[in-house]
C-alpha cells in the first residue's frame, strides 16, 4: 500500500471510531433516545429523562385546555396498555382519535411530558371504504 491509500484508510478508521463513540458511549446524551413500547411503560416505576413512544390516540381521551388551545392532554394506547401524555404547542393536522403518533419527551409519575408530537405523514387514506351499500 502506498502513502495515499494508507492515509485514507487511517482517516476512515478514525471517523468510524468517532461514530461508534457518539452512538454507543454517549447513550444518555442529547444524540440518542430510547424507544419504549407502551406495555414496557406499564410496568415502569422509575422516571425516565428521555423517552420516545409510539402508539395510537385513545378515542375520546383528547382534552384541550379551556384557557389555552395549545395545551392538550391525551392517552396513547397500544393493545391493552395506555399512557397519559401532556403536550404544549402546535398540534399536527392529523392529530385526532385513533391517529398513529410518535411522542418524545420525559416520563415522570406515569405521565409523559412531550416536547415533540408527530403524527404519521398522510401518505394516503387508509382503512375501509366509506360510501358503500351492502347488498
Amino acid at each position: 500500500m502506498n502513502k495515499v491509500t494508507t492515509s485514507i484508510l487511517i482517516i476512515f478508521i478514525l471517523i468510524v471510531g468517532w461514530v461508534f463513540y457518539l452512538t454507543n458511549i454517549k447513550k444518555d446524551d442529547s444524540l440518542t433516545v430510547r424507544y419504549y413500547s407502551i406495555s414496557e411503560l406499564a410496568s415502569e416505576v422509575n422516571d425516565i429523562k428521555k423517552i420516545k413512544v409510539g402508539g395510537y390516540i385513545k378515542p375520546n381521551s383528547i382534552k384541550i385546555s379551556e384557557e389555552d388551545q395549545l395545551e392538550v392532554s391525551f392517552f396513547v394506547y397500544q393493545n391493552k396498555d395506555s399512557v397519559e401524555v401532556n403536550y404544549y404547542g402546535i398540534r399536527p393536522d392529523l392529530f385526532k382519535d385513533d391517529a398513529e403518533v410518535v411522542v418524545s419527551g420525559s416520563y415522570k409519575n406515569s405521565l409523559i411530558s412531550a416536547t415533540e408530537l408527530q403524527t404519521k405523514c398522510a401518505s394516503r387514506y387508509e382503512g375501509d371504504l366509506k360510501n358503500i351499500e351492502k347488498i
Partner: protein
Amino acid sequence: MISQIGSIAISLAGGLIFSSFIFLGLYNKSKNNDYLEVAERAILATCYSIFLALFCLLNELLISNFNLQYVAQYTSYETPVFFKVTALWAGQAGSLLFWTFITALFTVTYIFTTLNKMRKLKFHSYLILAFIFSFFILLSNFIANPFEPVSSDIIVQNGNGLNPLLQNFFMAIHPPILYVGFTGSAIIFIMALAASISKDISFEWIQSIRRWSLFVWTFLSAGIILGGYWAYNELGWGGYWAWDPVENSSLMPWLTLTAFIHSSMIQEKRGMLKKWNFLLATSTFILVILGTFITRSGIISSVHSFTAENLGPMFFTFLSLLILYTIFWFLRRKSYLDTPDKIDSFSSREGGFLYNNLILILMCFTIMWGTLFPILSEAWDGNKIYVGASYFNQLNIPIGLILLFLMGIGPLLSWKSTSKSVLFSRFKLPMILSFFSGLIYIILSGSFQLYVFVAIMGVSFTLSSILGEFYKSYKKYNRSSNFFSSVIKMFLSNRHQNGGYIVHIGIVLLFIGFIGRAFEVEKEFSLSPGEQIYFSNYVFKLNSIKSEARDNHYAFLSDIDVVDSDNQLLTNLKPEKRIYFYWNSDPEKRQPHSELDIYSTIQKDIYSIFSAYDAQKNIGYFKIMINPLVNWVWIGGVLMVIGSLFAFWPSRRRSK
C-alpha cells in the same frame, strides 16, 4: 372489461418473464444465439404487457370504476383529473406497478440503445433483468394487485378520494421523479455486473454507464429537492429536511452515485479503480432496495407510513439475494478488476476524487448507521434506541464542510500530480477571498459560530475557484468580439466539465441555504383581531379572522399585517385553517389542514401558520418563523439539475 385485461396483462407478464428464464437457460447450455434472441423478445414482451397493465389501471382511475378496490380507495368522483392520474402512485399496489412500469421503460431503452452496441453484455443483463422483473411482477400478481375487485357483497357509491394534503402539484410529481432515479439505478447495477461477469469492460462501456449515471443522478437530485420543497411549503413545520428514515434512504443512494460519477472519471481517463467503481455502482441499487425495504416494512418508525405487513419479508429476501449475488461475482472477478496503477500523489486530480469519494462514503455510512441504529441496537441488547437529528447534524456538518472546500480544490488539481508552485498560484486568489469573507463575517456579526464561519469561508473559496476556472476558459474563447457568443462557445466547448461546474455552483448555493438554518427563529403566540405582537424586528398585527365555506372545505382566514422596523408595511400574510369534509357528521372523519402563507425573499422567508382557532373567545393561535436564505436551497437545486442535464445532453455530431 378493461380491468380484466389489466389483470390478465400482469399475469401474462409473469408467464413471459418465467419463459425468458427457460430460454436463457437453454442458451447457456447450447450457446445457440436463437435462444438468446427469444429470451430478449420475452423480456420485451414482458415490458409491453406491463405498459398495457398500467394503461388499464390509468383508464379505470379516469373513468372512476369503483368496483376496483384501488380506484375506490384513492379517488372519488370529485377528484380532479390531474390527481386521478397521480393516484397511480398514491397507494401501495399502484406504486409498485408504476415502479415496474418505469423499470420496463428503462429496459426497452437499455435493450435498444446500450445493448445493441454491447452485445456481449446481453446474456447477463437479461438474467439480472429477469430476476428483478420477476420479483416485482410476483408482488403485483399475488401480494399487491391493483386490479383486486372490492368484496362482492358491497356496492361502492363513491370512492374515498385523495388526501387533501397530497393534492399538491409538487407532491404529485415528486414520487415519479424519484422513482425514475430509483429504478434507473437498476440499469447501472446491471451494467456493472454484466460487464464484470462477462469480462468485457470497454471504453465504450464506461462512457455509456457514465451517461446512465448522470441521467439517474439528475432525477434523484430533482426528486429529493422537490420532496423538500413540498414539505417546506405544505407541511408547516418550517423545514425541508428532518433526517427521517425515508429521507435518509433516498439520500444514501444519491451519495454513492455521486461518488461513482466522480471516481468513474478516473477509470475513464486512466483505467484505474475498477473494483471500487464496481462496488459503488452496485451498492447504489442495493441502497435503493434497502431504502424501499425500510419504508415499506415499517421496521423503523418513520413519519412516512407506507406500512403493509407482508412486503417486509419479501423485500428483505430480494435485498439479500441481490447482495449475495453481487458479493459472489465480486469475489470471482476480483483479479479481473485489479489494476496495477496506483495513485501516486495527494495533490493530483485522482487524489482529489479519492478524497471526495471518501467523504461521500463516510456521509453515507454515518447516515446508514444512524438510520439503522434502532435495529442494530435492538439486536445488540434489546433496547431500541433512536438517534435524533442532532446526531446527523453533529456528524454531517463537519463532513459536509470538508466536501464544500474539496469542490473548490479538486478542479484546480492536475492529473497525476500538481507541483507546489502551480498549486500556490492557482489557489492564491480563492484563499485570499475566502480569508476576507471570513474576516467580514467576524466584524459584521455580533456572535461567532464556528460552523457558520467555516461555511462562509468555504462558500467564497469554492465559488471563486469555480468562477476562476470559467474565466480562464472564457479567455480562451474570447477570439470573437461578441461577449455573449464567446460565453456560449465556452460553455459548449466542454460540456461535461462545464456541466459539472454548474452542478458544483448549485451545491455551493445549497450550502448558503444551509447556513441560513443557523439563524432561524420562531415564535408561537395567540392574538385576537386588533391585537399585535413584536417579534424579531417585525410587528405582526392581526386585522381579522373570517370564515368561509368553499367547494370542498371550510376555511378560517386570518389577515396579518407585517410591519418592519422602519414602520413600513412589509407584507400582508393570510394563513388559513381549513377543515376538509366539514359536512361529515362524524367529527373524526373531518380533516383539518393548515394552509401556510410565506413571504419569501432572497434574504429571508417569513413563514406563518394558523394553527388553531378558538371561536368562542375569537382567539387565533399562530406560529411565525423567520427562515433566512431558504430560497438559495431551491435556486441551488434548480442549478444542480440544469448543470447535470447540460453535462448529460448529447453533443451534436461534429461532422460537417
